[in-house]
């Protein structure tokens, strides 16, 4: 059994890395798209809406396949490595869902907070980054945790575009050793542990963000 570990460990590390990178991309996209969607400029709202509806309305697998199979072909001729496709696809997909979570969180900050900041003559940027965003983030943690776990689970699909993540390695091992029950079970347990790690770290983050803040459900 122990000879299985090195390969599974490699796969796990790849899974962790792409999950983290895609999460960062998704967070950035979520914030950008949410603010764009609430902007006064119609063009920005349009772009944000198209991005959100497109990536939420289509399947993650379709998006990954499109990036992997279609992009290299003419007329795009853009060949990305499986690694890049994985991070990009996962990030874009979860970012679209994240945008709606972020928007809900931003809207859930009580209007009185903004009015108090205006009454104190605070500039719009100071208002947003100092008053609104910190409170919004505290409210967003709950749904964001679920999205991160979805990201982790979605990362298993990258095995189908030849990226050597945990699922890929598990498959590889099953094909060579035929010990499907053990290997898939171990893989499931590893994913489960990773999901709990996400739960725990988000919980700690929430505690830190929530010093003194009263939560509003998004």
């Amino acid at each position, binding site marked *: 059994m122990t000879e299985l570990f090195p390969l599974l460990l490699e796969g796990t590390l790849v899974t962790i890395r792409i999950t983290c990178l895609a999460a960062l991309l998704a967070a950035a996209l979520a914030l950008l798209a949410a603010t764009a969607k609430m902007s006064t400029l119609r063009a920005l709202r349009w772009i944000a809406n198209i991005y959100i509806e497109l990536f939420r309305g289509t399947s993650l697998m379709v998006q990954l396949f499109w990036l992997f199979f279609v992009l290299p072909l003419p007329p795009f001729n853009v060949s990305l490595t499986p690694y890049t496709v994985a991070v990009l696809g996962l990030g874009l997909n979860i970012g679209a869902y994240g945008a709606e979570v972020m928007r809900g969180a931003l809207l859930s900050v009580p209007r009185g907070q903004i009015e*108090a900041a205006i*009454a*104190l*003559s605070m500039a719009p940027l100071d208002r947003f980054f100092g008053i609104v965003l910190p*409170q919004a983030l505290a409210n967003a943690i709950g749904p964001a945790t679920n999205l991160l776990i979805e990201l982790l689970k979605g990362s298993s699909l990258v095995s189908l575009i030849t990226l050597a993540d945990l699922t890929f390695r598990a498959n590889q091992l099953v094909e060579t050793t035929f010990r499907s029950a053990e290997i898939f079970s171990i893989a499931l347990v590893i994913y489960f542990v990773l999901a709990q790690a996400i739960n725990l770290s988000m919980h700690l983050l929430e505690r830190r963000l929530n*010093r*003194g803040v*009263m939560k509003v459900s998004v």
Partner: protein
Amino acid sequence: MPHSNINASSIKSAVIGDPILRLRGVSKRYDKLTVLDNLDMDIEANEKVAIIGPSGSGKSTLLRVLMMLEEIDDGVIELDGEPLTHMSVNGALVPASASHRSKGRRNIGMVFQNFNLFPHMTALQNVAQAPNKVLGLSQQEANKRASELLDMVGLSDKLAHFPSQLSGGQQQRVAIARALAMRPRVMLFDEVTSALDPELCGEVLNVIRRLGSEHQLTMLMVTHQMGFAREFADRVCFFSEGKIVEQGTPEALFGAPAHERTQAFLRAVTEAI
């Protein structure tokens, strides 16, 4: 949009004895509903004005348009002889730009019914925030000013507390300190005790009382606290349906109200106690 037939030449420059706040023909409408109806009002420097009236009469809206949280549809508001809601461009009055409004706001402070303290900051940070970010004071100077103000409102031992750790009365006192930190000329109090349990009102009213007697401040208060208004205000205005129905000294208005609506309101309020 306010009419542009009001032009800059009709605005006098400030002279001692002129009112500090001047409202001329101010109207505010929400769709079909007129909330402020062609209001004319002069407020003298250091005057303490209590504004009373039934809900929906436009009292809070008056404060909100003074603070420019909402735009007026007609009329002009002047602070110290200078247009507040408008600015003069080439001799004509146009609606004020965002930066003009922002500068004007620094002279006015507002305390809200629901406190609106920033929950993710301590009391000290709440009060020091605007002086630091808006007035450009260094963090040290801002903190110093903040702790002095919090000391003045009786909360020197609560500097590091978060709003959720403070009672309603304490939170409102922090809110007062926060507004004062900008050293405004005019302070607006929007039903600041209405959200408080009765036994917590006293501490807030005491702070307001001391502010009035120890500092040079023009104060406008929308309030349901008739007793406090009677004792503290220089002038009481009774508002109804967007207009001032009657105004005068507390003795005059409470003692011998001339209008029937004023009488009816005061009757209803005293019966409720």
